[in-house]
């Protein structure tokens, strides 16, 4: 008799999703699916709006990574305007995007995943949260909070709001950087280094104890994609796309935003509202690829900053070729945070950073434009078409979580096959299946809020709907 296991909702994620695990007559895992159960519709309701509204409108997609949407959207608008923004504006946007990356990675690593890492996958679920971490490892909790506040405060200083800052606009930014704000950010840098160092050292001490998980947490060959500079260093705001294959060989390089449709296709599955991106030449689903911290570190030759470069060299020692296990997204996240702090410090040392020329202006000069940026969890592409009056007639967004969708589903199946034994499971098994998804830090919808309790229910259900076993986490 075949059975189904459902994890609904999956906890400690950005947004709402569920997992279904299908068992065959022998109780072995046959298939697993990660469902994103919410629908947003931004591409549709943007139609008819003036293109210059798009950055602030699109930023509402997400409460964690609105800056990446702002940047990608503004770049798409600038393609429509046919303008090149001033150097200082580009640097300020870069700093804003890096600050967002730091605060978002801090949320993912310290708030969402460190309970598993610090307390154990099998630890008491009532304690497996940030409060449990605070009790067991207060120094780690303090570092996480400080790093999140570091990123948030920079965003607030630059954009006047911690969430959904309206500072980034088509053509640049609304205001130049004030000297007092520059000095305030610089004053926070030493503490940020110290907190990041504490976290990185701690992670390296405990990482080996999770080798069994690393072996089955989405540990398989795939393609990897991300933005990269011409000198092959990591890039979050500009640059061009590179795709590498499972052996680390470059299969696509120098792909700018307008050309993304040449290489990236999007498939739809009936069980999820999130699309499934794939590399077109290999087709769907064979063209599955990964984006985000793991992918970015796999495609680059350097981080472009001294401290992070040392860490990158150590990271690359994890494998002979691309690092395949998604467990190491955690490690990659910490390396990127270090890079973010270094890069912010370097940007503030730019002699032109206080320049007053931070905006280019123009009207509609093209009827189509695309822009790309790296969100914390992966590459983001905004693509718009407008009419002669500049009103949006079509929009398409390729979001990081959709690009990791195939890998997440495959990873859930790999972990379920390893941990679910003859239809038997424990809460710790359930948590490990969820933890696979957490490594990717998917952003299903940060700006959607839930009321009341979010109980976690894992059920064994027969094809005729009979619940034969159930585990409830309330």
């Amino acid at each position, binding site marked *: 008799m075949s059975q189904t296991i459902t994890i609904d909702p999956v906890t400690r994620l950005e947004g709402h999703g569920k997992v279904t695990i299908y068992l065959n007559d022998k109780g072995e895992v046959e298939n697993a699916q990660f469902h994103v159960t919410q629908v947003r519709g931004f591409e549709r309701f943007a139609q008819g709006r003036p293109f210059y509204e798009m950055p602030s409108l699109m930023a509402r997609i997400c409460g964690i990574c609105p800056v990446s949407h702002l940047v990608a959207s503004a770049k798409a608008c600038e393609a429509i305007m046919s303008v090149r923004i001033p150097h200082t504006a580009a640097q300020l946007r870069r700093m804003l995007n890096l600050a967002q990356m730091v605060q978002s990675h801090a949320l993912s690593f310290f708030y969402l995943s460190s309970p598993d890492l610090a307390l154990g996958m099998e630890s008491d679920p009532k304690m497996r949260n940030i*409060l449990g971490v605070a009790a067991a490892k207060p120094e780690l*909790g303090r570092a996480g909070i400080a790093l999140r506040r570091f990123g948030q405060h920079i965003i607030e200083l630059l954009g006047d709001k911690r969430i959904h800052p309206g500072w980034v606009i088509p053509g640049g930014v609304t205001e130049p950087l004030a000297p007092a704000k520059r000095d305030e950010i610089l004053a926070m840098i030493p503490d940020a280094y110290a907190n990041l160092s504490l976290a990185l050292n701690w992670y390296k001490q405990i990482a080996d104890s999770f080798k069994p998980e690393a072996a089955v947490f989405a540990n398989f060959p795939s393609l990897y994609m991300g933005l990269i500079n011409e000198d092959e260093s990591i890039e979050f705001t500009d640059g061009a796309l590179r795709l590498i294959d499972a052996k680390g060989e470059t299969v696509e390089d120098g792909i700018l935003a307008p050309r993304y449709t040449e290489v990236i296709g999007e498939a739809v599955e009936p069980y999820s509202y999130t699309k499934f991106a794939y590399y077109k030449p290999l087709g769907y689903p064979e063209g599955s690829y990964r984006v985000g911290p793991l992918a970015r570190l796999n495609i680059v030759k350097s981080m472009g900053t001294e401290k992070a470069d040392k860490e990158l060299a150590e990271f690359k020692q994890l494998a002979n070729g691309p690092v395949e296990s998604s467990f190491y997204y955690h490690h990659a996240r910490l390396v990127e945070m270090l890079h973010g702090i270094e890069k912010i410090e370097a940007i503030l040392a730019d002699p032109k950073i206080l320049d007053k020329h931070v905006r280019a202006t123009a009207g509609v000069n093209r009827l189509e434009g695309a822009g790309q940026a790296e969100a914390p969890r992966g590459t983001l592409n905004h693509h718009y078409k407008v009419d002669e009056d500049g009103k949006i007639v079509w929009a398409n967004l390729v979001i990081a979580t959709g690009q990791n969708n195939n890998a997440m589903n495959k990873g859930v199946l790999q972990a379920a096959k390893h941990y679910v034994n003859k239809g038997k499971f424990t809460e710790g098994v359930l948590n490990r299946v969820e933890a696979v998804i957490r490594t990717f830090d998917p952003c299903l919808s940060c700006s959607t*809020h839930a009321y009341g309790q979010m109980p976690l229910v894992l059920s064994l259900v027969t094809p005729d709907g009979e619940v034969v076993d159930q585990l409830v986490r309330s």
Partner: protein
Amino acid sequence: MKSTKARCLLLACGNTLRGDDGIGPWLCAWAEERFSGDSRVEAIGRQQWTPELALDIAEAETVVFIDCSAASAPGSVSVQEVRPAAATQALGTHHVGAPELLNLARELYSSLPRAALLVTVGAGSMDLGEEFSHAVKAAIPEACRLLEKAVLDCLDAASSC
């Protein structure tokens, strides 16, 4: 990031686009206006309370949390003392409650405010919209009066130490 310690920190929570859920930020803005010019009072209004607020709490001498309550009768106003508590359920992605925030402040920074109060207003409707329900509208004068008293009591508690 802050150079002075708030004598009384107002910490409100709620979504202003979801009817009565927005009463917390509304009351917070009212109190900010009422105590404008009083450097002892600091106000923070958020859609959700998140763990990083534990540092603000640890640095404050007293705290007044302001929220709506889905468990209370619509329009009923309540002021109660809050004590640190462990999570009673798996914490949500972003949101933590007032007792958990106090607990975080104690665990992470070994610091607790001298007094911590929670002011709540019972919600009648949290449907989409920026208007309050009739019950909550009617309760606003009483909520403002009790909130003002809570802040003054906290300032007294802070200055007596």
